[in-house]
């Protein structure tokens, strides 16, 4: 191929400044990386990097503090919203976000997230839903689909025995303290762009002090689903989208006219 002359070229897309130029521990094709990048891009666009404090959870996202180029603290398992509450109340002028997976947020941390939303804490939660416990080896999580095979449900999730999955966004949207609750997916370019807009909206909610904001992101887990990264995006589209519909479950009236 001919060598490219970069002098006549403009940069369309590059590594965001809020994300360190580091190799992540995530498996190839894992959409955690996409979620990290979107958060970093939004903070860059809003020029909030210097005043942002992140709270990392336990799970695959446990090392999130190694990848973002702003201040981060690590919370005990499930307790990220409680810690974020403390950080935000002490530093009301800072932007506080938690980055949690489904095992952390809706299993061990159900109490924390529910009450943080009920209190209307002015924090932003990025919630990664990949339908299993990724870090520990793909066990059944509260978000595992009925009939889905995991290492702890080898014959598929039996709802008679293990109960039904929780639709977190729908549940939290019933609480009055919530300002912005939506679900998006990361399986193709169109949905990734929509997810970025939702993350922007969530931070706008916090900047305007409109209450608790959360973006649920449907994500792939190729390793534990035993699929290639490309097959995993198809599995998500065919199986997760019908069960977890993409919608705006709660949008504060003051946000409705915002457009990016």
């Amino acid at each position, binding site marked *: 191929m001919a060598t490219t002359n970069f002098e006549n*070229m403009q940069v369309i897309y*590059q590594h965001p400044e809020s994300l360190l*130029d580091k190799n*992540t521990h995530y498996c*190839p094709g894992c959409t955690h990386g996409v979620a990290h*990048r979107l958060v970093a891009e939004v903070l860059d666009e809003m020029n909030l990097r210097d005043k942002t404090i992140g709270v990392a959870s336990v799970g695959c996202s446990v090392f999130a503090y190694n990848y973002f180029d702003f201040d981060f603290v690590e919370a005990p398992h499930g307790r990220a919203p409680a810690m974020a509450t403390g950080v935000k109340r002490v530093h009301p002028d800072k932007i506080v976000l938690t980055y949690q997976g489904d095992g952390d947020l809706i299993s061990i941390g159900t109490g924390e997230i529910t009450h943080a939303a009920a209190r209307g804490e002015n924090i932003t939660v990025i919630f990664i839903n990949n339908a299993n416990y990724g870090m520990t080896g793909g066990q059944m999580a509260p978000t595992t689909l009925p009939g889905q095979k995991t290492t702890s449900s080898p014959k598929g999730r039996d709802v008679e025995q293990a109960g039904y999955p929780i639709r977190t966004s729908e549940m939290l949207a019933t609480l009055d303290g919530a300002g912005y609750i939506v679900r998006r997916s990361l399986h*193709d*370019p169109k949905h990734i762009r929509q997810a970025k807009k939702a993350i922007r909206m969530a931070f706008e909610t916090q900047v305007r002090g409109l209450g608790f904001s959360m973006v649920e992101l449907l994500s792939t887990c190729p390793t534990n689903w035993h699929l290639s990264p490309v097959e995993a995006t198809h599995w998500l589209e065919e199986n997760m989208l019908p069960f977890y519909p993409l919608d705006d479950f709660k949008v504060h009236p003051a946000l409705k006219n915002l457009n990016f």
Partner: protein
Amino acid sequence: MPLSGTIVVDENLCKACELCIVNCPVQVIALDMEHITPRGFHPATLVKEGCTGCGTCAVVCPEAAITVYREKRAEKERA
């Protein structure tokens, strides 16, 4: 005449997940089977002419490994 573009893949970050390859609208990206990265992957690379610099590969890249460049429009074209 469509604008021409190009991509540069950071070989230290690419993990050969192939998401950029399947999502490229003009099918100009492939894994470089002749080359191996320090982390042991065959990195994604531009293999054909025809890149428009649309940025879709960078949107789906989980490692933020792709920098996308696009040719600047001429002044009269922009008007």
